[in-house]
């Protein structure tokens, strides 16, 4: 059997398509079965011949065990070759189709991982390369031509058509003063003083980077309305309430349907000092007033 294994077509071809595999398995099984028997038979003949009277091999080569064995091997080899000749294209076609399918699957998985990780970066990596001051996250590079590919992609995702630093500074925050994520169902007090800019505004954005859809038409506070409605004291300090329902607050931003929202502070035509050093900015604070207990 050993000799046959070496020539076994299915061994040589390794991975085969379903059709090729089945066909060759059949032959293999037959060959193995027959080989076993013949090997046995041959050795028996040899033994017989070996003990032929007068110690001679058979006078006629037709009766010689070696000749029978030779014929058998030749026949099998020819048959195998003939079979190989017929089977090879099938086998290789199956093999290449299978390899192509496998490669395609691997490339698909890779592409999926690539797109997924890139989208993850674009959606979750908002704070990469940013500077956080008192909970407000700002970037020194947004709208900058020299920004790295990730910052450029992030800005394009969440701040497409944004202005340059000279024109506007953008700051974003998603937590209260204690560092807890802002919740649509909580009430917060937004408090601040004059900002180092020509004009400023604070706007609420839902997780999808658009204004929350709630029909309240209360999405922002800005320098002009704060001066009119929020009744700043003589130091120019003002208060704005951020909550899902309007209470008796004089100036209100609605967080209804806002989900995991963000507050964005815009400083238009900021002072040079503010641009250079975010830490010099007297940022508004966001204090939690009340929060319903988290539903179980």
């Amino acid at each position, binding site marked *: 059997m050993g000799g046959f294994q070496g020539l076994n077509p299915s061994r040589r071809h390794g991975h085969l398509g379903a059709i090729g595999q089945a066909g060759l398995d059949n032959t293999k099984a037959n060959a193995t079965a027959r080989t076993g028997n013949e090997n046995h038979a041959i050795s028996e003949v040899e033994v017989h011949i070996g003990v032929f009277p007068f110690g001679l091999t058979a006078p006629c080569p037709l009766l010689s065990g070696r000749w029978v064995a030779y014929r058998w091997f030749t026949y099998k080899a020819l048959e195998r070759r003939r079979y190989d000749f017929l089977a090879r294209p099938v086998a290789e076609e199956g093999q290449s189709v299978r390899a192509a399918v496998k490669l395609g699957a691997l490339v698909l998985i890779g592409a*999926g991982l690539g*797109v997924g990780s890139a989208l993850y970066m674009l959606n979750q990596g908002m704070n990469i390369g940013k500077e956080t001051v008192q909970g407000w996250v700002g970037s020194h590079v947004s709208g900058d031509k020299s920004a790295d590919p990730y910052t450029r992609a992030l800005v394009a995702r969440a701040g497409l*058509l944004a202005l*340059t630093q000279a024109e506007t500074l953008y700051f974003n925050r998603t937590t209260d003063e204690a560092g807890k994520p802002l919740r649509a169902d909580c009430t917060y007090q937004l408090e601040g003083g004059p900002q180092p800019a020509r004009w400023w505004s604070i706007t609420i*954005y839902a997780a999808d980077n658009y*204004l929350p859809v709630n029909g309240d038409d209360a999405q922002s506070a800005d320098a002009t309305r704060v001066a009119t409605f929020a009744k700043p004291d003589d130091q120019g300090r003002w208060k704005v309430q951020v909550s899902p329902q309007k209470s008796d607050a004089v100036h209100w931003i609605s967080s209804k349907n806002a989900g995991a929202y963000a507050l964005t502070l815009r400083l238009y035509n900021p002072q040079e000092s503010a641009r250079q050093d975010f830490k010099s900015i007297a940022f508004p604070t966001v204090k939690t007033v009340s929060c319903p207990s988290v539903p179980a």
Partner: protein
Amino acid sequence: MKSLIKSLVIVLVTAAVVHLAVILSAPNLLMAVAFKRLSAEGKMVNHMIHPPRTTEASRAIVRPSPDLAYSSCAYDLSKGPVRVKAAKATDYMSVSVYAANSDNIFAINDRQAPNGVDLVIVGKGQAAPAGTALVVQSPTQRGIVLERRLAPSAEAFAKAELARKQDVCAPL
């Protein structure tokens, strides 16, 4: 084992290439989407459009400010330079030009242009017409001009609306 490593390498290399391709092409792709939206699917190219006041239904641009009146012009320089005019404003106003790769290639505000903005955008290899005071060289044929006017109240918006009616965005 060997084929497992080979498979892993194929997956990781593909993932890395696709990841980088998405990151690198994101600004261009997102700009292309914005261009489509701001040009009414390509029908309003080289034309200043003045959308109504930003509301919670506004979805043309991410993170719109409800306190600004935005006007925009999706420009295409394939047939020559484009002229942009923005009427003067009494409060904050700015005009910014963005190339197709999302770069903010130019910005000017009402303090720098107290009498309003008048500029010409030229493409690569295009000559600026004689006598043009303000020329913006765009590295890409297409891009977006965005104008912002401060309008935190309905009254302020009405005022901005009146002023921006005189704005221009048209081929020379």
